[in-house]
C-alpha cells in the first residue's frame, strides 16, 4: 500500500499579532507514492511541524494537505507515525504493543476469523522482521533505546499504513545502533512499499535514507531547497564515502549554515585564543 501527499501553500503561525511566530510559511511539496523523502534543516525550520501537520496532529493556519487527492482532517489510519521516544505503552509487552491497534474499533470493523488470523500472522511477521522475537514478551522498560524504536516501527506498520511518518526516530540512539536501524528502515521501505517521510537534523542520515531531501530553513520556517539523492535505490554503508555522497553532504551542510543565521565568529574566536595564550605566557 502506498499513497501520494500534496502539500499546498501550507503555513503555521503560533500566537497572535506582534508576538506571532511563523513556524512555517507557504510550503509547497508533492510527495510521490512509495517515495522516501527526508526533511532536514536547522532547529526552528518547521520540519517537525510540517510532519505533524501531515500526520493531522497539528492544525493548519493556511493551505491544504491531501493524501491521494483527498484533503486530510485530523489523524488517520492511513498515516502512521513513529516518534522520537516515550511513545510505547509501558504496561504492555512488546507483542501487545505491536498489536495495540487491534484493540481499536477503527481496525476491527467487519472482523472475520480470517481477518483475525491474518492480523496475528502480520504481528508475528513484524516481530520477526524487526528482530524482536526473543523479547516479544518483555516490557519496553527492559529494552535498549534501539530495540524500543524497533517496537515503535513494528507497531506503526501493523495496520499496513500507506504512509509512514517518522519524527527524528533515531535521534536518541548511538551511532552504531543508528546504522543498523538505517538499513532496517530501508528494508522496510522496500518490502512494505509505503511512502516514508522522515525528519532528521543529521544530514548524513537524510542522504543515506532519502531518495529526495527537502532542506528547510528557519525564521520564518520554509522549504528552501530540494535535492535528488544521486545514489541507487539499493544502499550500503560504503556509499557514505562515495564522492557523490560527500559532495551532496558538503552542499547541504553549507546551505544549512547559510540559512541558520548562526555562524561561529572566527575573529572573536581568534581574539579569545590570543588572550588565552597571553595569559598562559605570564
Amino acid at each position, binding site marked *: 500500500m502506498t499513497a501520494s501527499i500534496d502539500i499546498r501553500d501550507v503555513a503555521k503561525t503560533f500566537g497572535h499579532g506582534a508576538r506571532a511566530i511563523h513556524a512555517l510559511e507557504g510550503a509547497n511539496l508533492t510527495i510521490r507514492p512509495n517515495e522516501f523523502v527526508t526533511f532536514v534543516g536547522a532547529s526552528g525550520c518547521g520540519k517537525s511541524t510540517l510532519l505533524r501537520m501531515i*500526520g*493531522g*496532529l497539528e492544525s493548519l493556519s493556511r493551505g491544504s494537505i491531501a493524501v491521494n487527492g483527498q484533503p486530510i482532517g*485530523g*489523524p*488517520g*489510519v492511513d*498515516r*502512521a*507515525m513513529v*516518534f*522520537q*521516544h*516515550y*511513545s*510505547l*505503552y*509501558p*504496561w504492555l509487552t512488546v507483542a501487545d504493543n505491536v498489536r*495495540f*491497534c487491534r*484493540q*481499536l*474499533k*477503527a*481496525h476491527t470493523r467487519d472482523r472475520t476469523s480470517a481477518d483475525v488470523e491474518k492480523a496475528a500472522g502480520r504481528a508475528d511477521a513484524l516481530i520477526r522482521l524487526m528482530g524482536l522475537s526473543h523479547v516479544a514478551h518483555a*516490557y519496553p*522498560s*527492559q529494552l535498549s533505546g534501539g530495540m524500543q524504536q524497533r517496537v*515503535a516501527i513494528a*507497531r*506503526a506498520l501493523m*495496520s499496513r499504513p500507506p504512509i509512514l*511518518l517518522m519524527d527524528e526516530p533515531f535521534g536518541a540512539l548511538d551511532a552504531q545502533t543508528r546504522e543498523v536501524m538505517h538499513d532496517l528502515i530501508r528494508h522496510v521501505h522496500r518490502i512494505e512499499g509505503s511512502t516514508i517521510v522522515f525528519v532528521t537534523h543529521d544530514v548524513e542520515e537524510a542522504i543515506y535514507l532519502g531518495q529526495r531531501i527537502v532542506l528547510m530553513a528557519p525564521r520564518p520556517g520554509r522549504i528552501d531547497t530540494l535535492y535528488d539523492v544521486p545514489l541507487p535505490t539499493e544502499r550500503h554503508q560504503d556509499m557514505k564515502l562515495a564522492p557523490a555522497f560527500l559532495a551532496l553532504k558538503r552542499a547541504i551542510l553549507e546551505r544549512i549554515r547559510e540559512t541558520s543565521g548562526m555562524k561561529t565568529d572566527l575573529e572573536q574566536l581568534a581574539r579569545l585564543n590570543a588572550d588565552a595564550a597571553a595569559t598562559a605566557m605570564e
Partner: protein
Amino acid sequence: MSASKRARGSGGSLWQIRAAIDPRQYWLLALAGLVAPLVVWLAASHLDGIDKVFLPGPADVLTRIWSWASDDDLTADVAISTWRVVAGWALSAAIALPLGLFIGSYRAVQALLEPLTDFIRYMPAVAFIPLVMLWVGIEEGSKVAIIFIGTFFQMVLMIAEDVRRVPLAQIEAAQTMGATRGEILEKVIVPFAKPALLDTLRVTMGWAWTYLVVAELVAANSGLGYAVLKAQRFLQTDKIFAGILLIGLIGLLIDQSFRLIHRKAFPYLAGRQR
C-alpha cells in the same frame, strides 16, 4: 594518595546521593529507626520526677491496650473508626477519580474546576464541623462527611496531576492509529496513570486517618478518635498514647497493603527506580 581517596570513597558509600544500599543494611536501619524512639521513650518514662500522667511508659500503654480490649470494646472502636475513614475516603475516591480524569484530560474542565478546588482545599476541614452538623446532622453521615471534606479536594488535584503526566507521544501515537477520544481515555490514559493513581489513593488514605479525631469530635460515642478525646477529658494519658499508637499501627498496615498491591499489580515497573 589515590588509594586513601578510594578507601574514603567506598567508606562513604552510605552517604552517596541516591546510591543503592544492600537490603540487609536497609532493614537494619529501618528497625533502628523504629526501635530508637521506643528506647528513648522507655528511658524518659523512667527518669525521676516524671509523672505517669505526664508521660506513661510503654508498659503502661500496653496494659491500657489490654484492658481496653478485655473490659472495654476496643474491637468495636477500631471497627467503627476504620469504617468511617474508609467510607469517607472511598466516597471521595469515587467522585475524585472521574473528576480528576476529566480535569487532567480536558483544559476546559481544568479551567472551570481547578482554581475553585485550589481555593476550597485551603479551607480548614475542622471549620466545617458546625456546617456539617447543620446540613448532614449528627449521625454517622457527619463523620464520613468531615473525612470526605478533608481528603476530597486534595485528591482531585493529585489525580488530575497523575493524569496529566501521561506522555503526549503515547496519546498521539494512539491518535495516529485511529483511536477515538474514548479509546484514548480507556486504553492509554487510564492504564498509564494506574500506578500513580494507586499511590495517590494510598497517600490520601493516610490523610483520611489524620482527620479521624476531628471527625469524631462531632457527637460521637465510639471510635478510636472519640476514645482519645474522652481520655483527654479524664487525663488518662496512657489511653491517649494507646489510641494514637493504634491509629498509627492501622495506618501502617493499610499503607503496606497498598504497597504490596502496587508491586503485584504492576510487574512492568519492577526494577525501575521510582
